[in-house]
């Protein structure tokens, strides 16, 4: 078994070798480490992508907008990922951004995962019927079987989810009521003597 440290080192060097800058290579290496840590086929997909990178054309983006459409070719997931990570605080304000045609969308996941941590919000990543929930860089939930990961995402949507409960108020109250059973009913004497602060604080 390869250690995550080996995965990161080799990925960084390989990324540099195919032409990314050292700084970008560091980002890619962190990303692949994260994918492999979470059980996603990072090495496999990066390998496939790097084999294509000098044969096929991919589009890069500079400033990201609410809607981003590629002209002729699909977007490079690494360039896109780095741009999203760098511009995340601006992009967050759009609530939702879309991309038309992204190659190897799995390679975008670690950048979205880290972005979720940066803005402190969950991010929903959707393309076709596939959804991924990026949880503050702690984990990634998906409805997709990991064995066959799509090589192209045609219509991609990235939604910045507002921080809100994913349970009803009724469910919360019910649980809270149970938790109250650990409390002690206060007698007059306990009210007088068990608290740290005084009963009147008007002095």
């Amino acid at each position, binding site marked *: *078994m*390869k*250690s*995550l*440290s*080996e995965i990161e080192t080799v990925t960084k*060097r390989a990324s540099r070798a195919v032409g990314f*800058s*050292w*700084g*970008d290579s*560091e*980002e890619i290496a*962190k990303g692949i480490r994260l994918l492999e840590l979470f059980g996603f086929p990072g090495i496999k997909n990066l390998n496939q992508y790097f084999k294509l990178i000098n044969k096929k054309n991919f589009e890069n983006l*500079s*400033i990201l907008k609410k809607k981003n459409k590629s002209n002729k070719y699909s977007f490079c997931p690494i360039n896109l990922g*780095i*741009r999203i*990570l*760098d*511009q*995340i*605080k*601006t992009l967050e304000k759009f609530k939702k951004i879309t991309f038309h045609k992204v190659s190897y969308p799995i390679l975008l996941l670690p950048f979205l995962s*880290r972005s979720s941590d*940066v803005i402190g919000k969950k991010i929903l990543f959707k393309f076709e019927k596939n959804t991924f929930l990026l949880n503050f860089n702690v984990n990634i939930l998906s409805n997709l079987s990991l064995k066959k990961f799509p090589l192209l995402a045609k219509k991609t949507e990235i939604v910045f989810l507002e921080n809100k409960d994913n349970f009803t108020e009724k469910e919360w109250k019910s649980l809270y009521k149970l938790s109250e059973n650990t409390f002690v009913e206060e007698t007059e004497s306990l009210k007088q003597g068990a608290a740290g602060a005084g009963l009147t604080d008007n002095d």
Partner: protein
Amino acid sequence: MNINLRDPNKIMKLSRLGSFHQSRLSFLRSFLSEFKDWKYKRDLFDLDKNGYGTAVYSFTKKDRVYSLVCFANQISDTERSDRVIATKWDAAFTLHDGIPLKKDIERLRNEVPKQEVGRLSYKELTLSRANKSVRIFDHVVENLSKGFQPNLDLLEKVGYLYRTTAVYGSGKFGLADRFRIKNREEINGPFRLEMMLVYLVRQFTFDQVNYVAKKRNPKTAVNLDPKICRNLGIGNSTGLGMAPFIVNHPTLLNNWISCRETALKKIRELETVEIKDSNLFKSCVRNSVKNITSWNTESEYQIKKIKFLLRDVRKFLDFVEKEFDFNNSYPFDILYLWLEKETCEECVEYIVSIMMEPFGEIVQPLIKKMSSDEEKYFNIPTDRSVGDLLAILEKKYSNILTIDFDKKENHKKFWFISKNKEEPRLADRFEEQGSDLEQPLAIARDIKKLYERCLLSKKSLKIDKFLIDNSDLRHVVRRAFIIEKFPYSEIQDNTISENLVPIDMLRLKLSFFGALKFDPRSDKWLRICMFQGAPLPNELKDFDEQWVYNS
């Protein structure tokens, strides 16, 4: 009185970092303190009459067990090499997490002796190999087998029976990643498991030499005197492989230096010092002189440094014993200022290390701050502006910004990774090929380049936009925002200069390991000794904290 931390622009220069010495903060000393109440045991010792075979040693506390698995092999003299290009060694070792099962030992027997081309598993924590100092090993066996102790003069010249040529950890070759074990209290300090491996290897070398002598002549053989054992350490040959580490781990480097600087600051801020503490300090300085006079090297560079060190330490001792009064307020501040004025860099840092000896209560809490959660500082704050970045560069890299990189001598060298051994190397950019594959270790040059690009950009431009056209400098943008928070994270020197002395980078790291007697064999590699004078495993329960000076 509030004393400022020392200026990184002064301390982080390579000549200063290359003058650092071991101290109470050093990893091998903090390892011994942490593991002193662990149960030590030799679990297996299955060697043949020539000392070849398998041995296992362990440290145990409650349910936690760390086991050193040793494989001693026969190699010919022509196969023995300390260089990283070697493929066979006298002995190979791994530190196994837990008690190794028979099948683990069989697996490890196939892999550990192969070192870099073997594969370890997440159950193994560190990996190393070592070669005999054949001259010393044979001399000791010969004498012990006849019932005599070895010649101490000869032993003192070398200081060890074996020297390691690499110690690997943190995920190398399939070893456990650091994250798997980082929450263990006992290893909450850098390189603690690497130190454990070296320490147990040292005991193996004593057991092996005793065993071979006994097998050679069972009737007359005696064991090596424990006092002699104590004064033997483990040698280590270290080359350039270690140098990039301190560039590649900026927050970790910061924490090491920052703890040392904080200790010095707190000691200088002591208004009064008890007599027992000033006496301990003086006795350590006095006793340490023999560590300098017994420091053997053939390196002209080091001989000169030792000569000045000895001269200045004697001058300092003279001052402390004849002129200085510890009843002065803030005595260590006065001493420090005197040192800076009167002695060489090597002596200043030597005495700074010894200043920590009486003050365990200052040093101990700092040891736990020497690790770093590097991931936390990896993200670039891209909502900051070019103006912010410029201000950081001007404040934190002021000396580096004055270097003229158009001059050939200032960018003469380049760092690369050798294809043969995947190890870092240094070469002349104008005479050798390969500079197009240069490693990102020319931080000073790239910082200067970043500064010039920033000057051409609008100050209000946000970093996210700046990076669009300057992704080639992303690695140093990250570093600049790290140094803003971590002032000692960067070497304030040019690592590609014609005048670079790479062993200064090695010295820095090795001093934090706790190495003694740096012996440069060229400007690119050196030999050192570790654990010389340290207590033996069966003496750990109650040992002299100042063993470095009192052995």
